[in-house]
């Protein structure tokens, strides 16, 4: 059979399973959090040190797939010897650090951050935030007479809506649209103070902007300011019912990349498509077809 072409026989098995080259061992860093000793690798953050100890540190603008921007300050911890509280999500662990994750000062800071946010922004669709606020005893009404960010919902296309009255300026959408994932750069933060907001170039409507409707901004939005249209409409009609939804992981039916789609179904209709952040193919990101191109599945179904 040796004269047979190479593709006639199954390929021989290599003597060793092919592997990626080993990464250099990272130096270990020992520190204490709340008096407990912990060791992490050099380059790891205080947030990672806390989580290693099972300490629950709240975050809002941080996400494991995005570069920290230190915008929200809800993850602050107290670092011995530092004048100010430090953001756990970006501060790198150093040998001998002494960190307090739940001191009075830390709790007060987080409480006030939540109060300031909730007094100026509509957080009604931010998952889990009400529990957090209760845990810190936040009372946004203390600032109730202050300025609020009230803006009409922007509905300028049929795929997703932008309700910047719910935006906490966490920058996640900007990062996901930029270098951290999509590299489209359709949006940025524009303006100052209460005039600051997420904007397309020259504030043009989305269909006139650089947006390619991947929806990777929606996927990272922590407050529901960015929302796919079916969810927005169902909520407006009072029919959005997460308890009645099934959530199923499958693989996208379009190109051959093999993106995992998490399909959210209510009343036998697809109401939302997401992808797991920890998926090695997508890291939570999808393209426009994967996230929005499911309407054909509803053909022949009752409305």
């Amino acid at each position, binding site marked *: 059979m040796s004269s047979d072409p*190479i*593709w*006639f*026989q*199954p*390929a*021989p*098995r*290599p*003597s*060793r*399973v*092919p*592997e*990626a*080259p080993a990464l250099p061992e990272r130096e270990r860093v020992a520190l204490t959090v709340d008096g407990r000793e912990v060791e992490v690798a050099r380059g790891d953050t205080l947030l990672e040190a806390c989580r290693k100890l099972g300490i629950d540190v709240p975050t809002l603008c941080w996400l494991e797939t995005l570069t920290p921007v230190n915008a929200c300050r809800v993850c602050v911890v107290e670092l011995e010897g530092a004048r100010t509280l430090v953001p756990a999500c970006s501060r790198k662990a150093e040998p001998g650090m002494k960190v307090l994750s739940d001191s009075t000062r830390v709790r007060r800071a987080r409480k006030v951050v939540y109060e300031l946010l909730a007094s100026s922004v509509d957080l009604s669709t931010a998952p889990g935030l009400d529990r957090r606020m209760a845990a810190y005893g936040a009372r946004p009404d203390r600032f109730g007479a202050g300025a609020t960010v009230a803006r009409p919902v922007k509905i300028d*296309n*049929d*795929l997703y809506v932008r309700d910047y009255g719910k935006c906490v300026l966490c920058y996640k959408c900007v990062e996901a649209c930029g*270098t951290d*994932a*999509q*590299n489209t750069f359709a949006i940025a933060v524009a303006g100052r103070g209460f005039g600051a907001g997420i904007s397309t170039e020259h504030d043009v409507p989305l*269909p006139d902007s650089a947006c*390619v*409707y991947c929806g990777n901004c929606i996927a990272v939005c922590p407050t529901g300011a960015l929302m796919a249209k079916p969810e927005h409409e169902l909520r407006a009609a009072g029919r959005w019912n997460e308890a009645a939804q099934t959530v*199923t*992981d*499958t*693989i996208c*039916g*379009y*190109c*051959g*990349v*093999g*993106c995992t*789609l998490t*399909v959210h179904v209510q009343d*036998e*209709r*697809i109401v939302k498509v997401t992808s797991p952040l920890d998926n*090695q*193919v*997508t*890291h939570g*990101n*999808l*393209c*426009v*077809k994967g996230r*929005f*191109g*499911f*309407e*054909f*599945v509803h*053909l*022949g*179904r009752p409305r």
Partner: protein
Amino acid sequence: MFGAGGGTSSYREIEETDCVLLWGSNARETHPIFFHHLLKGVRRGARLIAVDPRRTTSARWAHLWAGLDVGSDIALAHAIAREIVAAGLENREFVEHATSGFEEYRAAIEEWTLERGEHETGVPAAVIRDIAHAYASAPRAMICWTLGITEHHNAVDNVVALINLALLTGHVGCYGSGLNPLRGQNNVQGGGDMGALPDRLPGFQHVENAPLRERFERVWGSKIPPLRGWHLSQMFEAMEHGELAALYVIGENPMSSEADHRRTRRLLTGLEHLVVQDLTLTATAEAADVVLPAAAGWCESEGTVTSSERRVQRVRRALPPPAGARDDLEILFELARRLGHDWGRPDPEAIWNEVRSLSPVHAGMSYARLAAEGGLQWPCYDESHPGELFLHSRLWERPVRGPRAPFSVVAHDPPVDRLDREFPIRLTTGRRLEDYNTGVQTGRYAYPRRRGESLDLSPEDADRHGVRDGDRVRVVSRRGSVEAPVHVDESLRPGLAFMTFHFPDQVATNVLTIDATDPRSGTAEFKASAIRVEPLER
């Protein structure tokens, strides 16, 4: 390649490579999430070289764009190879120990000087030289391609020309280097792996290899025809000769997707019996004698699909199919029952386990592991095997394990549909980001900037014809003509036009395309038609 029908590398490797040749692929639009991985590599310092007649949205990310003439890929590959050899940049050790046929190959490329390369491809000699040096000198380098390589009458030769480059430089079989066809459909890899090829049984096992075939015959308890069957283009030829009278089409819309639409329609409507199993009443289904309404495989059924990185992953039923539609498996089982074979109740996992028992490269992939490990890459020989991150590492063992990888001599052969005074413009076809194939699935979601079919022309050609954006023109090829609005596109060079085939109800692009096909792969030359443009009254 080299006995395995799949891309050699994993997506994560492109994040850590040093050089990417993206050849005949607009991955930014056609494989957007793969392009995310590629961009991570670029941001870490990898050099991106785009080889494409169009300056696509992918090419705009490239450090170097080689805007070659359509169908001159082999000429370019040969000129790159000759420069690599002339500059002494080939990987001598790899060529000597892991390959065969180098001397014949070297003799064949000898005439492909940079100057000749420039003359045949339109790519400046200095750019060809840069590509050769960048690719050969990079510690790790990858070639990724799509249909710009394979939708040609000499598709297999095009692929071989790229494989030769990797063999010459040793850029295959090690981490961060490889040869990667990006698959256009979610399970085109898995379909081939499962034997939906004319010459293969599940596990890419050759049907004409008697010992392999006999294993299947024992398990299935029936005789398997010992010779390969027809590929798609041969089927159409067989229809032409009256040898093929009945066709069962599952999840494909050849009436809209095949080249030379008039011939396709004549042959499909001339069949004695046409059965179509699909989600909607496609153009092909409209011509069928029997239509079997099917469930949507990706969200209304259970099973597996295989991606471009050879990753087998589970698809799951997220919702039941609409009334009247049935799962593909159910339909096939029912059909078998009526033909006198009771296969019992369809059970996707049991069928998968049968695949595992017959295909050694899938043996280790239990449903439980596929779910727990986010899919597994073949080959995965047993339950403790992690799956191979990259293929052909055996080529780096000394002495090389198994047969050497052969260089193959191929010759440049320009597109069949020649340009002349009557048909002076080269039309190439492809996809856009938001749409997909014949639009059966994507036509129904509300992409805000969908603009429908157009004839995309370079600004120079638009001027020459006195047409502007939106003007309607007649596009004429040797096979037929269509009318379409003009879209002026600066990514096109003079003499090059572009259309999609996403909107067959508006414009039947495939009336224009040529069915010159590769004799081995059966792929038609969708990428190269000769046209002329006739402005219509405003």
